[in-house]
Structure formats: C-alpha cells, structure tokens
C-alpha cells in the first residue's frame, strides 16, 4: 500500500466513542513471546486500534505462520 493509499484509508475511519478520525501510529503486537511494531490506524485519544481484513489475513497471518513453525 502506498503512502497515498494509507492517507486515503486514514480518512475513512472514525472512533465512535471519541468522535475523531483514526491516525497512523506505531502499534505494539505480540505472539509466542515475541514483540513487534506495526503501522496501524489508531484513535489518537483512546488508542483504540483498527486491524483491517487485509492486514489480518495478509501480514498477520503470514507472520503467525512463520513464527509458529506448524
């Protein structure tokens, strides 16, 4: 995804509780005892994070497979 695409996507999402648009941020994630940082949309106020379907079935799933050694 290009930066422009990311920008476009950014403006699509709003945090319902805080009423503000989500912004790109560095988010911490963990799996099987390893920690990582990814770029994801997040509410700047309450820090609610969005994981899109693309991310979940794409990068996250692939990283899980590599780490799992199934």
């Amino acid at each position, binding site marked *: *995804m290009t930066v422009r695409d990311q920008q476009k996507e950014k403006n699509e999402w709003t945090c319902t509780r805080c009423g503000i648009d989500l912004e790109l941020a560095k988010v911490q*994630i*963990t*799996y*099987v*005892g*390893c*920690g*990582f*940082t*990814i770029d994801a949309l997040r509410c700047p106020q309450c820090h609610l994070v969005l994981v899109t379907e693309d991310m979940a079935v794409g*990068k*996250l799933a*692939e*990283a899980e*497979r*590599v*780490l799992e*050694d199934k």
Partner: protein
Amino acid sequence: MLDNCIFMKEAEAVGAAPSSLARPGGLYITHRAVEFCGFTAGDRVADIGCGSCGTLEYLMTTRGICGFGLDPAPSRLTTDARGIWRPQVVRGVAEALPFKDSLLDGLFCECVLSLVDDLDAALLEFSRVLKKGGHLIISDLYDRTSTDVSLPDRIYGQSNLQSALSKRGMEQLLDAHRFMLLVWEDYTMALKELAARLILAGCSPDEFWKQGCRDRTPNPLGRSLMSAKLGYCLVIARSHAP
C-alpha cells in the same frame, strides 16, 4: 511474557534500544559470544564481512577493543561510522585474509559464512590468522532438515550456493580444520522473529535477504522458513592448529 523476544534480550544485554542491525538476534548473539570468549581491551579481534561495523562499534563501546573490519566492499561503510573513533576497515574476502599468521585472538564471522564460495579456503585462512587457542565465532543460517547422517552434508570445493550447511556439516568443516567446537546454540527463533518483523513491515524476507547478501542467496528465505528448512545458529570454536 516476552521471554522469546530476542530484541528484548538484546536491549537488556547491550543496555540500549534494539539495534538497527537487521540480522537475526541483532547484537544479542554477538554479546553472548563476547561474554563466552571473555575478550578484553588489548585483544586483537577481526570482523569478517563487517558491513556497517555494528559489531566493531559494540566491541569498542562495551569492551574497549579496537577491532579490524574486513569487507569486500568497504566503500559503503565509512559513511556509517559515527563519532571520533573510526573502525579500521580493509578490503578483502574470507578466502584471502590480509592478516599475518597467528595474529588474532578472535575472529567474527556473522551471517557471512553461508555466502563464502570456498569454505575450505576460508577456514584455512581463519586457522592461519588465529593464534593457537584463539576463538572463531560464527553465526549463520543452517539447514535443519538434513538429519540423514549417511549423506555428505556439503560438497566441499564446490560453490554450492543453493544449500546452507547442516549442523553436522559445520561440525565436519571445523573438525577438518582443527577447530574444537565449544558452543553450538540454536537461535532459529531469532531468525523467525526477523522474518516476521520484515513481513509486518511490508518487506518480503526474500528481497531483504537478497539485498543484504548481494544476490547470492541460499534457498529463498521466506519459503525455506515456511517449510522450516533453515535455522540460525551460533557456533564458537577454538583453534588448535599450531
């Protein structure tokens, strides 16, 4: 909780934020090796394939060791050196080291051996430039699938870039050049972590590996990891050759 996280371990050990060194285990494995070998200021140490001098800087800042760096393309490096102290880097390859006989107390070969064309020539050089009792530190990819002990683990003298050494292959290589194996530690988790990190950052592990290794890759990294053929290890050996 993050007890598998090698970067956390690195931070603890090195006392700093995780290095930008994108190799499995970052500096943690280097730290482990340095601790084990007990290098101190005054020791003569070289880093074969020193890249951006991460290891050399680490040796200087933590142990006060002035090490030599060796790289086939040193021109990329000097711009990355920071501070007043600059590591001494010479151009060269593992198979023909520009060092005198029995000069070094320690020799680092991190993430480099799997790219060397002629392993026997390289090991011959290592054993030449190391003092008797000197330490050889290798960290690299290895082939986890080769368990069949009756097959040759690597064809020596041939540029077999498509395969990484197996554990047994490495043991044979060291033995043939009169190195005594002291430590063998598996850090495959660090390799997987690095691959996962790359995937999450949107890079393909294959592309990254190719870049870092100047297009001379072993089996495409991603696929090998998925089929779990490749692992990562730390090997420390002592030279016995007179």
